[in-house]
């Protein structure tokens, strides 16, 4: 059970997405999940080990590390990716439910071509439009919430080289040095930029869906 599972689930949703949705999925997999697994995890791999404090007091380093890094960036990103991918499951469930209903009608004697049912591309209209639009809305909300959480927890997006710590049992104010701060700042800004791009894609997809339905309604009335 790892990121491959997410890939399998979201790959199924891809079939019923708009083109912008497919681009969003590609950006998510290549520029966020892959970068997280292949590069970012290594950068943060030794974060506690190489967090060094200018004191011999046992426990001071642990306490200071815990104070300045309540949740590691890597864990927050993993949570963000999971939360942001989950609304797509609403769409998958809706499509599965529609297919199940059609199969049930077929079993009850209605004439439906079973081959057509299997290969049918389900168009985004009616109740599915609402499900799809709400899933995009939730994605945008989750992205924004996590970007704010990062900003609030770490006072901005920069990783400092030196933090001054005076939590007990540290005897006085102690200098603590973070490992690889520049590399971590670089990756934080990179992930932030890609989150921003994903948010833009989601907004564009939302506008496209709303416009499409408005144009359809106006064509019906004229």
């Amino acid at each position, binding site marked *: 059970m*790892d*990121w*491959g599972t*997410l*890939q399998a689930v979201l790959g199924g949703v891809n079939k019923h997405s708009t*083109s912008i949705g*497919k*681009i969003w999925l*590609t950006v998510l*997999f*290549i*520029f966020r*999940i*892959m*970068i997280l*697994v*292949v*590069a970012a995890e*290594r*950068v943060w791999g*030794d974060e506690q*080990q*190489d967090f*060094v*404090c*200018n*004191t011999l007091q046992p426990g001071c380093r642990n306490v200071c590390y815990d104070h300045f890094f309540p949740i590691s960036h890597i864990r927050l990103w993993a949570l963000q990716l999971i939360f942001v991918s989950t609304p797509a499951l609403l769409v998958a469930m809706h499509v599965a439910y529609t297919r199940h209903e059609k199969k049930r009608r077929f079993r009850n004697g209605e004439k439906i071509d079973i081959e057509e049912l299997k290969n049918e*591309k389900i168009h985004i209209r009616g109740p599915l439009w609402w499900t799809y639009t709400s899933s995009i809305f939730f994605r945008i909300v989750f992205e924004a919430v996590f970007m704010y959480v990062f900003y609030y927890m770490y006072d901005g997006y920069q990783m400092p*080289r*030196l933090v001054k710590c005076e939590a007990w049992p540290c005897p006085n104010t102690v*200098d*603590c*040095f*973070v*490992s*690889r*701060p*520049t*590399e971590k700042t*670089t*990756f934080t800004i990179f992930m932030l930029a890609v989150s921003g791009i994903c948010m833009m894609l989601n907004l564009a997809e939302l506008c496209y869906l709303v416009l499409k339905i408005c144009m359809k309604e106006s064509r019906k009335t004229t």
Partner: protein
Amino acid sequence: MSWVFLRDLLSGVNKYSTGIGRIWVAILFMFRLLVYVAAAESIWKHEHDEFECNIKQPGCENVCFDHFFPVSHIRLWALQLIIVSTPSLLVVFHVAYRENREKHHNQKLYKNPGKIDGGLLYTYLISLILKTGLEIVFLVLFYKLYNGFKIPRLVKCDIKPCPNTVDCYISKPTEKMIFLYFLVATSCLCIVLNLSELSYLIFKYSIKCYLKRHMKKQQ
């Protein structure tokens, strides 16, 4: 979810590539991705732990390492591999768009949706230009960040909290330098392949265009 994903993605791209494009994919897999995963990663694995400074002052090693290696070679290498492979997806998207159009109109609009002609040719050329441009950007980045492609054995550091100028020793500098040169060589080879594929396609389609016009004039 790791490099296997990239490999599967690029295998999909291979279907719509020219012969030179397929050689490019093969070189990317064998000489860049495989070398990265099988060899390079383990060389840079403990770079921080094995970076030693001639001082007991806590924090001095951390700060000096961060100053001399703002972004590690191995991370730049990984980013380069991912970003350089991505423009090929434009071609995959375009072919998918063509197939989608055919399904939507329920008729055969293209002789072969995967054939490199018309709009797909321009997409392919753009992807080649992007790939070449990104390779060059990364090579320049490597050069600028590390003052050339050399990795010194010893660096002198005098950033706070280091009290004075301190000698710091980098681990496995020769091995890292050899692999760095290997990276540069394979990048240059990929640039050459991309440029030759670009020239080949432009040449081929200019000749086709010219012959078509010549036939029309004769008629």
